[in-house]
């Protein structure tokens, strides 16, 4: 094969079997022997981290990532991305379609992976400087360039419909900060009330997740990708469950049509 048709990667290398160049004798992830050494010894989150970062993570980092993965594994059936996956389940759409639906709906700027990207970008920009957060959250976004994503409508990582910080969010923040003892999470524990006052909204789960990803050394693109991945288990389980329940037990809401040609009054 010519050099221009080679696939370049720093992540993965495979050695072929002597009798078949398409069969794998050994596979190495970032240099570690996957089937010869990692399988059976490495934790799932260690593999996950290794794929995205070039070095293995510490035990404390692995504990933190695993705790985060548990926290976000199921956004629950009230979440839009899980609702979308359940729409696949009730109609008997394919498993992949249900997950595609969860990914697409869970990708956005409201409680989705793009909100993680935005929040991590904010962490990069503001760090633990309260004044910087104040400026970031209140900057004029009208002049922002047009993007494939809709415009940001609230400070990323915070709940635009929230009244006070939900107990679940506080528990998640407290536990992750204790496990990770990492800079952003620790600062967030101490400064949350002040930060929420500046933003005008309570912290949301995605805000804690974004701080965790940043503390683990992921960049916003990696955090966005991981958030998409880590929230899929719940979507998958709920999609399968709704397939069992069937469409007759799934909400099909009443409609109030505001532009009905049958009841239009002509002047």
């Amino acid at each position, binding site marked *: 094969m*010519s050099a221009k048709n080679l696939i370049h990667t720093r992540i993965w290398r495979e050695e072929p079997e002597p009798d078949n160049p398409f069969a794998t004798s050994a596979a190495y992830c970032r240099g570690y022997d996957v089937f010869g050494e990692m399988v059976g010894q490495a934790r799932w989150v260690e593999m996950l981290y290794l794929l995205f970062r070039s070095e293995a993570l510490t035990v404390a980092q692995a504990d933190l990532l695993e705790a985060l993965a548990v926290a976000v594994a199921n956004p629950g059936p009230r979440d839009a991305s899980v609702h979308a996956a359940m729409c696949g389940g009730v109609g008997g759409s394919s498993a992949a379609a249900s997950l595609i639906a969860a990914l697409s709906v869970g990708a956005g700027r409201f409680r989705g992976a793009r909100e993680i990207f935005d929040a991590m970008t904010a962490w990069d920009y503001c760090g633990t400087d309260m004044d910087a957060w104040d400026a970031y959250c209140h900057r004029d976004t009208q002049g922002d360039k047009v993007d494939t994503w809709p415009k940001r409508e609230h400070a990323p990582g915070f709940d635009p419909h929230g009244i006070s910080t939900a107990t679940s969010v506080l528990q998640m923040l407290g536990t992750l900060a204790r496990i990770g003892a990492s800079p952003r999470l620790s600062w967030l524990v101490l400064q949350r009330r002040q930060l929420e006052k500046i933003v005008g909204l309570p912290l949301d789960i995605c805000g804690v997740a974004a701080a965790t990803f940043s503390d683990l050394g992921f960049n916003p693109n990696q955090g966005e990708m991981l958030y998409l991945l880590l929230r899929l288990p719940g979507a998958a389980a709920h999609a399968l469950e709704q397939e069992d329940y069937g469409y007759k037990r799934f909400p099909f809401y009443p409609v109030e049509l505001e532009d009905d040609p049958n009841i239009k009054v002509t002047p």
Partner: protein
Amino acid sequence: MKGPKFLAEQVGILRTKVGACWPGTRAVFRGHDLHQDLRNADWLELYLFGITGRRFTPQQVKLLHGIWVITSYPDARIWNNRVAALAGNSRSSPVLGVAAALAISEARIYGGGPGLRSIDFFQRAGQAVAAGQELRDFITQELKSCYIYGYGRPINSRDERLHWLAELAKEQGLDQGRYFNMAFEVEKILLGMGKPNLLMNYAGMISALGADLGLTPREFHIFLLPMFLAGMPPCWVEAAEKPEGALFPTPCNDIAYEGEATRSWRGRVF
């Protein structure tokens, strides 16, 4: 040849009959220069040519167009459209939302699945009848082994689309096909068997028309791919105009939990 030798033959090259493009010069679409020969083609005509390699008459294209138009429902409650709408309301991108809604449309109880299985049913019924079997006997046999797709519908068994599509088929002179007539005959037989809920549905009528046009089940399946598409963008657009998170918000108490009672993780028994 098979195994690694076969794979080695395929390394680093695309062998194709359907087309290719050479950026800066030209593009070929199934043996025709796309710009010189096909630039004025109707989009659906091109789409069908791409799927089948065959050309269709203007009347056939108009009928197939109608099949898409008549079922373009911008109702965000319908499961596939709901996905597009939820994407808009969650501030995801329109392409992600609509692509996911299209993927969801390939469902078992509506959309892609029934259409594919229904055209397969008609073609097998056609073969059985041509071989001398009574249609009623074939239907009885089918009912024993599986569900007959193309008849019966979730939510309401009466399909409001059929009258309009039948009229369009008549206008285009395409309502006398063997399978189109068979579709009504099957409905009559099912009613006679005491199955009043198994009225013909849209999948039944469109697959009969597709079979009359000579489409194979797989060609028909791919033709159906964008069938609901026109109804999806309005759902995304309106949901994107609503405040974020305001489409189908569900309070905690609207979840009817039917699982295990609350229990301790730390105290679990191994």
